[in-house]
């Protein structure tokens, strides 16, 4: 059965990209503030078990419609594992490089200035 766990007060997320890493029932989980919302992701890289959410947030390099020019999308919603650089979308947990790859994500609730992760 899932239940919600307090992670931090909202004032601990002073700006876009702020994060808090905590441990819930033995699992390290990071909560990120992104685009006015909160997203919870396991602090665990599926590649070699690195501390994924201790890495930077970044945008993403894609291509234009003709698959020719390289285009940088500066929407910084991808967390990059500090160990080997695998990256995941913090809003979905999926890899932007292959949708079959992903890390666990958790629902987040905000109530009375407190951010909760649901696990």
């Amino acid at each position, binding site marked *: 059965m899932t239940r919600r766990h307090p992670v931090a007060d909202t004032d601990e997320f002073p700006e876009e990209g702020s994060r808090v890493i905590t441990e819930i029932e033995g699992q390290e989980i990071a909560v990120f503030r992104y685009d006015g919302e909160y997203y919870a992701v396991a602090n665990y890289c599926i*590649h070699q078990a690195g501390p994924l959410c201790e890495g930077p947030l*970044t945008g*993403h*390099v*894609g*291509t234009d419609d003709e*698959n*020719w020019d*390289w*285009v940088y999308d500066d929407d910084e919603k991808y967390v990059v594992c500090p160990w*080997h*650089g*695998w*990256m995941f979308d913090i809003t979905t947990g999926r*890899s*932007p*490089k*292959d*949708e*079959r*790859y992903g890390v666990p994500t958790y629902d987040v609730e905000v109530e009375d200035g407190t951010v909760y992760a649901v696990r």
Partner: protein
Amino acid sequence: MLDNALRVDQEEQIEGLEDLNRVIDVDAQVQETPEALLEHMDESSAARRIISLTELRHDMIYAGPSSYPLYEYKRTNGGDEPAATDDVDDLIGAAQLAEQASEAGVGVGVVNPTLNLGLSEVNNDRFAVAIAAAYNDWLLSELDDHPNLVGNAIVAPQHPERAAEEIDRVADERDVVGIQLPAAGLLPPPGHRRYEPIYEAAESHDLPIAMKSTVGNKSFGQQYWWAQSFPEDFVYQHGFVQMRNITSILYEGIPEKYDVEFVIQGAGLGFAPFLTHRLDDHYLELGYEIPALTKLPSAYLEESFYWCTQPIDQPDGDPTYLAAMVDMLGPDNVVFGSDLPHGITDVPETLVDRLAPYLAADDLRTVMGGTAERLYGL
């Protein structure tokens, strides 16, 4: 342990070659000579005129010199006389190949060139275009009387627009079932945008692209020039060239743009699992510089790349490891090739003997001909 994991029940195995459907060899070769090809160039062709006046045609037209001191087909095994029957200067046409293929138990051979696997290294692009057309015309004349042989038409990578026109010219020939894009010495490598007319033409005619390297490939790295013998070059040449080419094709996103199937010849299977993993791993680690793909490189490889078995990898004489390579790559992506008529030929029986205990009958039939049948519309 590996043997236990891979071995299939006796009743699921084939009993021998006679249990197979038609064996298809995706890597048969003729051995064309410059003299034979000159016959298929117009009298008015300056390429014909200049090549015919060139004394050392292999070394001077094809700018990759043979390794010193002994080229493989001149090998003597230490005696006074050449030991090989396929001296590289001799012409081996379709008649001789068809006979050898038939003796080896090959039902249909997909024919590739020998000399012109080095076509990419012809410095003069006009000559390269002329040689490609002459080879294709010569090949078609050779194949006419041999229903058990079909062929890959060759293209000159030096001039991709002319290469695409050449594909258009020969694509409807009954005996043309694919394209050979000579893998050795492709500068720039084949993921570069300049080659896109070739991929576009191959896609529009639904012709798979075969790629095979050759020895004496001067373009592949400075280290080649320091090979002290033929074997020192031969050990790495095919595999390394294919790794460079496939990496370029994938990371530049060619399979994302073009629906083309690739048949990778002459490098065996052993390098392919290694390459597949490296491609995937670096794609996930360094993907910000590989934006053209939308899924793992291995997914594209599984969809549209086929690994030719020749030369058979036999680590430590234990066929279990060979079976494990087929298992890793998937039997749907492994295709039998012989390299007939050359001295390092693998006959069907050799491969079947080694794989039969480890592949279910249907999977082995797929390797020995089923996939090639679909690829080449045979």
